[in-house]
């Protein structure tokens, strides 16, 4: 027995004598996690969050969240003697006077971008593989909540330095608040402690950014992880993997080493980016004043789609009874995002309603085997992508020497035309892939070897695929659509005819599939 074995034993004994948790700990130390690269995406988000907490704490030691006016007297010569807020001046000090301060600022900002990117890609993985299905609907909703909070938290974070670019972002946020019918101007005055920009906003969002939202994040992430732990991770289909088991590696030591190591890798990569890739050089923008602006004003990427929607909105306002409703702000800034995020949060329930499937699912879908869901996902992504492209229309116009007006018109038309097109194309691609799977199982792999038959015909030799592969390509369920007759068995018309018709149609669309190969098909071909 080595020393480390002895210590491990002693620790286990010590803890159990004080908690009586031996059984529970044993169960959890040997808990099995399935291995797949796509399961690391959520981990990246988690680790970025830890990096954000660490680097953010460092920044709070020097950042002064105040809009009190000061005269800058630091080592950055171009801004010397300028009037600016204490928030901006202290951010300059962190960048130029505090050793490692700029590095930490850049790590913090890069970690925020990676955090959001990891959340989005993790969400896509969960969506396209159907991991949100029963019993994981709660975790899906928590995830959508984390995404939403992340957008807000990120926006508040890059607003804090009070530079010209971030101040412009706050101005836009103020305009959105101000555009709310009835309560808008009141809410704006309460938020800013008076007329924009006032002197209250930065200190207020500082509390929200470093206390309120991180607290909410911690709570939600804890529940998110506890649910993953308790419900056990989903796994990809494959030989030996069923709805009833989990195949993978035990938590201790393999998974701890891998996940712990991965934390350091994510932190290392973020530090590397912070070291070599300059981000948000606020000293170039200057202090915020509402009368000035820099060309090419861009939000961080996760806000870009929202800005893109606002940019492409038609110039519509209603003036009625001495009141104004700004559709050009409300539709792209609140109504469309509201519909998108609500729809996203409710999707697990919508799908279960369409398919009538109320069973538990622990085996993931291959995206091609759920063509409707996959197509809907690609359609939503296309919508976001068009919006995001339009959010960078000025940068694209300058980079590629295009007309900004043409890009805007491309987006205005594209946002309606491209998503449905993406839906149709994706659905067909999925079905084609299913067809290819079927061919592969039935006729085997193309070997690339051509053989001339005695009668002169050339044929390519096919090789049967392995039973493992054949299983992978045929393990999925193919359920028939819901049978919702308009008239029930007793000859009475069902209530809610329209609703049922819609449900039946959706269910039918959802069930479209190329029939998978059965054992009988294979037998028939062998006897052929």
């Amino acid at each position, binding site marked *: 027995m080595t020393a480390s074995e002895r210590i491990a034993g002693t620790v286990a004994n010590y803890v159990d004598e004080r908690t009586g948790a031996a059984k529970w700990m044993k169960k959890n130390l040997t808990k099995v996690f399935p291995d797949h690269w796509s399961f690391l995406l959520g981990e990246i988000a988690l680790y970025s969050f830890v990096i954000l907490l660490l680097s953010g704490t460092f920044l709070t030691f020097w950042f002064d969240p105040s809009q009190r006016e000061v005269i800058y007297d630091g080592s950055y010569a171009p801004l010397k003697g300028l009037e600016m807020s204490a928030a901006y001046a202290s951010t300059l000090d962190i960048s130029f006077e505090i050793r490692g301060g700029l590095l930490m600022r850049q790590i913090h900002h890069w970690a925020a971008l990676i955090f959001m990117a990891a959340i989005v890609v993790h969400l896509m993985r969960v969506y396209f593989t159907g991991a949100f299905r029963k019993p994981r609907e709660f975790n899906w909703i928590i995830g959508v909540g984390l995404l939403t909070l992340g957008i807000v938290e990120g926006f508040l974070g890059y607003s804090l330095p009070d530079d010209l670019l971030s101040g412009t972002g706050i101005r836009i946020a103020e305009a959105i608040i101000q555009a709310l019918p009835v309560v*808008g101007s009141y809410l704006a005055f309460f938020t800013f*402690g008076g007329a924009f920009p006032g002197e209250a906003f930065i200190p207020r969002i500082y509390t929200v950014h470093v206390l309120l939202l991180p607290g909410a994040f911690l709570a939600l992430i804890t529940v998110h992880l506890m649910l993953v732990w308790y419900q056990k991770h989903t796994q990809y289909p494959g030989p*030996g993997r069923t709805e009833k088991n989990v195949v993978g590696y035990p938590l201790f030591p393999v998974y701890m080493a891998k996940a712990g190591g991965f934390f350091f890798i994510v932190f290392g990569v973020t530090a590397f980016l912070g070291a*070599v890739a300059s981000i948000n050089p606020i000293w170039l923008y200057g202090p915020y004043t509402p009368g000035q602006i820099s060309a090419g004003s861009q939000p961080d990427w996760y806000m870009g789609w929202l800005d893109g929607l606002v940019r492409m909105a038609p110039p519509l306002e209603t003036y009625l009874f001495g009141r104004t409703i700004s559709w050009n702000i409300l539709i792209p800034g609140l109504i469309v995002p509201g519909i998108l995020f609500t729809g996203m949060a409710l999707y697990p329930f919508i799908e279960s309603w369409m398919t009538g499937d109320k069973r538990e699912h622990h085996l993931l879908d291959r995206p091609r085997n759920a063509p409707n869901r996959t197509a809907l996902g690609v359609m939503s992504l296309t919508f976001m992508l068009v919006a995001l492209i339009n959010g960078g229309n000025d940068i694209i116009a300058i980079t590629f020497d295009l007309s900004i007006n043409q890009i805007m018109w491309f987006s205005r038309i594209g946002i309606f035309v491209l998503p449905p097109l993406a839906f149709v194309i994706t659905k067909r691609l999925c079905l084609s892939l299913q067809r290819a799977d079927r061919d592969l199982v039935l006729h085997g792999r193309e070997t690339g070897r051509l053989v001339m038959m005695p009668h002169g015909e050339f044929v390519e030799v096919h090789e049967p695929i392995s039973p493992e592969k054949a299983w992978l390509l045929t393990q999925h369920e193919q359920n028939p659509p819901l049978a919702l007759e308009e008239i029930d068995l007793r000859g009475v018309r069902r209530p809610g005819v329209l609703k049922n018709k819609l449900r039946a149609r959706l269910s039918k669309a959802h069930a479209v599939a190329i029939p998978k190969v059965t054992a009988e098909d294979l037998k028939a071909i062998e006897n052929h």
Partner: protein
Amino acid sequence: MSNEIEAIKDPGLPAHVHRRADTDPKAALKAERQVAILFLLSALGTLTLIGSYFFIPQDAFIFFPVLGNTNAHQLFLGLGMAASLFFIGMGAIHWAKTLMPDEEVIIQRHEFRSEDEDRADLIATAKAGAAAAGLGRRSLIKRSLALSLGLVGLSPLILLRDLGPLPGDELKKTSWKAGTRLVTDPGDRPIRADDLEVGAVAQTLPQIGEGVHRKLSDIGKDAVLLIRLRPEEFNLDAERLSWTHEGIIAFSKICSHMGCAVALYEQQTKHLLCPCHQSTFDVTRAAKVIFGPSARPLPQLAITVDSEGYLIAKQPFSEPVGPSFWERSS
């Protein structure tokens, strides 16, 4: 499901293939050394970090291809930190992948739904509890509780009232009055018509008393852009034309869409462009919106000159400046 009967059979978990390090002690030793090297690289990274922190001056610059001229202190500090973290991770994962057991383990799942008996028990308990509380029967308690719970939510709203003053007519007025001089921003110098050449643009603010501090919230409403064209280039009605002075026209610089500073002026086309959302305004036609999401022209400020020849506002803005709000009448 009927198709499960005739489906292709699950061949089961494939047989485990051993790694070289599992069978060959030499390979295991090699893997161990690799892990150690990775951890040592991390230690080297930390030393780089310490060295850079104390010995590279903060204003030292170094040229690197691709990166260009870079601050050496910041760069090596960051690279040291990156290496110190990254290689710990690489070491741990290499260790796990080469030396820790890699045989897949299977555990069983259980359906989350409890046994029917337990469920019935729970439902009965819930029902009994609800009955014991008797909310259904005691409607007086139910209603008064609903009332108090509904009202208790109001207190945080009430307590937050002092977050800010009521808007009043703050959004509707600016500092511009009849006779207010336009002064340059920055510089606070009054402007004569001759100071502006045809085609020139100037950012201005209303003149304030010597030593008075200009608030940012005032700049957010008062910023005005002066543009000088040839008078014949205007395409304005008589009233708006009378608001100009010798080809000089003044607009609020605060975008009528979302309040950004409309700062991009294109001399050739005489268009003003807001860099935030690309609302484009035609200067010759009183800042009419010709592209983008803004629904209203930029408010025009009527200007003239005073007895000393300095540009002044003829009257306050005739409409609120900046983004729309509910109480705006047009």
